[in-house]
């Protein structure tokens, strides 16, 4: 199993640290990954409910708020995870200074956020209306 080095510095006052935008995006990548695992559990539970419960059908839950919520959260989290994951892959592939700086620039970070916001709005609109 994993051997912990045991001598890590510990500074847990997160509010006292000023994180750069890329660090926040990296943290969001991890948070959305966790949300995707939770969503997977939600979809598994839903599939079990449809199979086991005689009155629950695909049509009856199709427009249910919990299902709409699950769909919105899953596809929004997936979009963010996909976009920032693509950026991680590009940054690991293009390691020469010029392309690496462009990939990690704040312009690309804002472009990622704006793209994600637009897609998330479209997803929420499709899920709820």
């Amino acid at each position: 199993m994993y051997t912990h080095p045991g001598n890590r510095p510990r500074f847990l006052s997160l509010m006292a640290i000023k994180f750069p935008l890329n660090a926040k995006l990296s943290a969001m990548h991890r948070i959305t990954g966790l949300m995707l695992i939770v969503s997977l559990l939600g979809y598994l539970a839903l599939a079990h409910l449809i199979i086991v419960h005689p009155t629950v059908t695909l049509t009856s839950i199709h427009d249910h708020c919990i299902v709409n919520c699950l769909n919105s959260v899953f596809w929004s989290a997936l979009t963010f995870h996909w976009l920032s994951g693509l950026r991680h892959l590009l940054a690991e592939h293009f390691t020469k200074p010029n392309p690496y700086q462009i990939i990690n620039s704040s312009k690309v970070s804002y472009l990622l956020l704006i793209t994600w916001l637009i897609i998330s709005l479209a997803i929420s609109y499709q899920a709820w209306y």
Partner: protein
Amino acid sequence: MKLSGVKAHIWQRISAVYLLFFFPYLFWQIQNSPITIGVEFSSWLQTLFTPLFSALSFMAVALIITHAWVGLRDVIIDYLPKERVNFWLRLYGLFLIVVCIDLLALVIWIFPRT
């Protein structure tokens, strides 16, 4: 078994590249199999899971589990205190095994009926 960072990173990248292409395909496939009023769950699944999509999905599930294991494994190792790491790693590994068994049970339960 000793956990290796290099191997984990390589698997994380392989699975990431596959899933990068799979998820847009999943979205497109779902858009092409809309849920109509009165449709049965099993017949909707039959429309959704074409032979090509089934084969690619099987591969995707295996790689999602790999990706999820490495991803949350890194989070656990990075943030948890020393004395709790091994316990949570084992518990998370067990959780993913249960998810795999559950998915397999669902496939065995649903598909003979379609």
